[in-house]
């Protein structure tokens, strides 16, 4: 069994999400600078503050433009009979392992952006938190959820018979 990758359409959804997020962050920084000018007084005493704000906005825009490509290229997941294994990350690469036996609930969720691209997210809830398989095509997400439910049911049957 091999690790699965994301569908290329997921990049578009990520870009749209990042555009919205970058605009919100830039507006917050710009507003903070404008308001601090009112409280501090003449901002000309602090020209670097304006440059710092511009640099921060530039960094945000740069990160948000690169992030979808790197995230897409690095994202891998695999569902075996025993566990869900997800590898993801941009700067910090994380590997999350969730044993199937620990899964309490499987949920397929879609926000407006994912919905617009026919994508969904599979949320796996355990007693110790939530793990996600992100940016799945809707039919694939439902297949993943179905497979997980089948594995959980098999596990529950084994446990119940044991009791």
């Amino acid at each position: 069994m091999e690790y699965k990758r994301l569908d290329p359409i997921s990049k578009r959804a990520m870009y749209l999400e990042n555009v919205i997020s970058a605009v919100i962050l830039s507006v917050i920084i710009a507003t903070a600078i404008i308001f601090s000018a009112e409280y501090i007084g003449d901002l000309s005493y602090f020209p670097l503050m304006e440059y710092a704000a511009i640099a921060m906005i530039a960094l945000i825009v740069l990160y948000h433009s690169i992030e979808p490509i790197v995230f897409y290229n690095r994202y891998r997941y695999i569902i075996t009979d025993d566990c869900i294994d997800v590898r993801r990350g941009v700067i910090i690469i994380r590997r999350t392992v969730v044993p199937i036996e620990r899964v309490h609930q499987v949920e397929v969720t879609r926000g407006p952006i994912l919905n617009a691209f026919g994508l969904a997210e599979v949320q796996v809830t355990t007693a110790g938190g939530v793990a996600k398989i992100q940016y799945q095509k809707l039919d694939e997400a439902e297949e993943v959820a179905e497979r997980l439910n089948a594995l959980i049911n098999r596990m529950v049957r084994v446990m119940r018979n044991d009791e």
Partner: protein
Amino acid sequence: MNEHSEAMNERFRNSATVVVKNVATTAAILLSMTIWFFIEQPQVAIGVIVVIALLTAAFCWRWYRTLIELTDEGMIIERNTVFKLKRTIPYIKIASINADRSVIDRIFGTVSLKVNINTSTNVLAPEAVLTLKKEFAETIRETLSLRIFDREVTEPGDDEGITFSNTELVLHGLFSMSSYQTLFAIAVLVYAVIVSLFAEGGLAGVLLALFIVLTIHMVPAIMTMIRFHGFKVSRIGDTIHIKHGAVQNYKTSFEISRINAVRIRRTFFARLLKSAYIEAEVVGISAAKNDQRPLICILCKMSSVRNVMETIVPEFIYVPYETKKQPPASKWPMLLNAAVVLAAILPALGYLSLNIDHIVYDTEWIAWAQTAIPTVMVIITAGVLAGIYYSIKLRGFDIGDHMFTFSNGILDRETSIISYGKVQIAETGAGIMARRLGLAKCNISLLSTLGTKKIGSGYFTEEDLKRIPDRMLELLEYELSCKILTQNDPKQKEAHSDARV
């Protein structure tokens, strides 16, 4: 056994003490909110009395219409008032039954049995509270234990178990809390002494300082001493019994298998005394009052801690309490992270210091700020570098066949011994520098007494950390294949169930 059969067959009510408790709590809240208006507006007092009387009638009605039944499958609580309720708690889901005795319980000779189930959504509050006459409560507790554990839970005798001296109790109260809290209290106390010795007319400052010390250190310390007075822990078979409390008696018992992790904690002051205390992550115990996890051992000497570990939780012993420290290369990713944080903070503070005269106009304040800000910059840098140095020296990790250990903390240190079988999610992560050096960090999600708990490691080799999820899956797979094997072979199933008993 006859008593148990009777308890199983009949429906019963809580003791009427439950009404007294409800009325007392409600009256206390109402009076504390309205008592200030009684002199100027006596009609408020009349209104409060009427409200309390109405609520008393409602509590009586609710008590009378609430019935409890123990069936073959579970405990059923049925309430037939305006709000109908039928709650079934299957025995299989019950994790523990605690017996608490508040002051009101003692006056009326009752016991509150708190029934807890094993779930993350209900870790802080019990699923059901039964207030019953002492003898009847004992019968019900035994009946429930028989149903839950398939056997009667034998209560430890008065001379059984490990007890602790009053000196240990006092030291636990004073030094089990965060060392930062204790150090702050000491600093305030020193300030109070200096002011009282050298400053004229500084009485107000001294009184304020003493009040702060009292509030942040002495009151919590005394509360802890009262809570853990008469602490006693014992183990009979696979069941651990804990008993403590001066004003409110607290008594609980749980199976060893319910412990998700054991944590040995050593605060700075505890280390000076060569002492430690042990906490347990037990889900379904609802003992998490004031953000405290159940203790297996209060602050005592390390030799006593070892004795408690060997007697009460030997399953969690696999290393001689020492863990492998972070490799020297781990300093590089930490230094890189620190450099990023400092590169953001230090120039901002330096810039502020240089231009402080555009914000503050008082020359005295300008001079003070121009000294204080660079001092803060030096303290932050020194703090970060000291943090890295001690992190390499102190953060540890060790991996065993059935357990693994994380050691964390610089001033207050803790060693968490975690069972693979209790890990819910394992996550390893590595940044740019860590990846180049083959290092990573690991986060473990557990179900804890206070909800979900994440325990993190320092930087260790990716290979070593990878063994945690691998071993966790190996054990789960083995357990599952054993189950399938025993189900397919009736003889093995019989042998397996005998082994489990």
